[in-house]
């Protein structure tokens, strides 16, 4: 490992531990009360799911409006597994159920992705939106197949194991994974497909394979985030995973800037907090205006930064050595938003 990289690694490691320590200290002194802790945990889960969509749309350019369906599939399958093996709340079962969540979402993504990923842009968006609605109807009627899933009345009873520590560790691991994927040869192929599918094809990239792989990977991440959700919030309901939730993921990825891991992470956390801060700032009398202000912020933000807040830029440590001179320049590897 070259000297400079090792130094960077140590700095990032220290920074990560410092962020963790600061949050834990604030928690200990009750500046962060359980309410804000819940919000923070939700922001971390949102980030994981949004990183999945970032791979699919931000880096590979495949328009998906059904991301929440995979998030929900992960949540329900992980939740169901943990509920059925309720006997001991062991960490091993927790990890296994997260992997099951990711696997179920990934497998369904493979089955649906193989046929529909040959659709282009808006048509792909509608097909995934349709899939999301089918999954939602399935969840609403799931109790007819397995009564433990609860159907339209929702499901509870999943052991609540995921706490801030787990979420933080998993988020760091997922960010590292996404970074390594994006700068691997597969990730480069994804970016090539996003920029120009025909050119990528001509270069010898198996575009179908790359698109399906990115889709499966992104959806599996959503499934894992869903598994986390099931272990953090005791009540799962189909309406938490409908197409409006898919739009939440989409606007985080777009507002953050397509093709930017930093953008997705920062925007996901900021967006979840914005909603709660608005509740706090507006108080009892103006709480009705929350949705209006939220919508106005969204419109103003996208008009002011149509290319997204971080459009193709990355914080230094998210860019491995050979690429760090390219990113962020106009002709750099991540430039352009691949519309």
């Amino acid at each position: 490992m070259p000297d400079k990289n090792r130094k960077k690694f140590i700095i990032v490691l220290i920074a990560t531990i410092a962020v963790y320590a600061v949050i834990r200290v604030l928690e200990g002194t009750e500046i962060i009360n359980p309410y804000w802790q819940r919000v923070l945990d939700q922001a971390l889960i949102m980030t994981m799911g949004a990183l999945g969509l970032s791979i699919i749309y931000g880096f590979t350019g495949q328009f998906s409006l059904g991301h929440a369906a995979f998030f929900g599939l992960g949540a329900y399958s992980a939740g169901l597994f943990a509920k059925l093996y309720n006997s001991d709340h062991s960490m091993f079962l927790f990890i296994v159920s997260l992997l099951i969540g990711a696997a179920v979402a990934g497998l369904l993504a493979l089955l649906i992705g193989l046929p529909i990923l040959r659709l282009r842009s808006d048509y792909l968006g509608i097909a995934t939106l349709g899939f999301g609605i089918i999954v939602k109807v399935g969840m609403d009627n799931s109790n007819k197949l397995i009564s433990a899933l609860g159907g339209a009345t929702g499901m509870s009873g999943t052991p609540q194991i995921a706490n801030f520590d787990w979420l933080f560790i998993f988020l760091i691991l997922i960010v590292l994974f996404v970074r390594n994927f994006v700068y691997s040869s597969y990730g480069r192929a994804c970016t090539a497909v996003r920029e120009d599918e025909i050119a990528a094809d001509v270069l010898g990239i198996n575009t179908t394979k790359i698109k399906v792989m990115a889709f499966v990977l992104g959806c599996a991440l959503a499934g894992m985030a869903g598994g986390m959700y099931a272990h953090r919030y005791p009540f799962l309901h189909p309406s938490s995973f409908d197409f409006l939730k898919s739009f939440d993921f989409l606007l985080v990825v777009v507002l953050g800037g397509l093709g930017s891991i930093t953008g997705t992470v920062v925007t996901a956390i900021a967006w979840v907090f914005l909603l709660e801060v608005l509740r706090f700032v507006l108080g009892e009398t103006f709480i009705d205006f929350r949705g209006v202000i939220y919508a106005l912020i969204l419109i103003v933000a996208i008009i002011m930064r149509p290319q997204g807040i971080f459009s193709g830029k990355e914080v230094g440590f998210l860019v491995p050595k050979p690429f760090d001179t390219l990113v962020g320049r106009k002709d750099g590897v991540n430039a352009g938003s691949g519309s």
Partner: protein
Amino acid sequence: MENLADQIINGLQLGLMYALIALGYTMVYGVVKLINFAHGDVFMVGAFVGYFGFTQWGMSVPLAVLTAMVVCSALGVIIERIAYRPLRYAPKIAALISALGVSLFLEFFSSLKFVFGPNYRVVQRPFEEVHWNVLGLNITNIQVIVFVTVLIMLALLQFLIYRTKVGMAMRTVSVDHNAARLMGVNVDNTISMTFAIGSAFAAAGGVLYAIAYPQIHPFMGIMPGLKAFTAAVLGGIGIIPGAVLGAIIMGQVETLTSAFLSSQLRDAIAFFILILVLLVRPTGILGRNEPDKV
């Protein structure tokens, strides 16, 4: 068999209302290549204005429909001017996000107590529902009103697009903005005009919807909007006859599944058919499959 025929008529009623909404989606997509997610909420505003028209402002139904159409065309033009025009030459996804923002804004703003209020309202119909028995079919006066209104509006649209200068301008802009400008077409005005017409159609659809299914609330536009938009994609987005065809198919699928299979599976089956159709015809039933250009 009679029951089947009745259900087909019910489906046609629903489908024709979807058609009014779908036309707005498809026309806007034709000229600016944008999925106007706020369109379903314009439909909602139309339903509310019409409702206030014939219940509180003492208007006759045709006048209420006209008022709703005028209000909504103004709304459509304002939305385009504020939220979409600044993003016209930005990446397409930016305008889509802006459209989502406008949609949320209209929903939450309408829910405010001093606007429409957050509650469901039951619509007092301005006239009684009358059932007629024609050749063994059960037909209501509401169905007749819906059929007649939609057919008149479709004829009007056909005339507008193929027989007037505005229509010609719209067709030109849908091919190429720059070429249209070189031909002397005022692109901005034409786009505004398209939004105005599309929104007026949605408003008419909204008032009819409120009369046919008499319950309205600020979030009522989401599902019909989504279905209508799906119908437009099913028929081939950007193609006007496609929108009508898609909407009629959508209405039939939905009504027939809820009547003979299960009303809970209605949406799932409608979207399943959409995905199947897209797999066979990736650009919709009437869509042109353009070859890849390098």
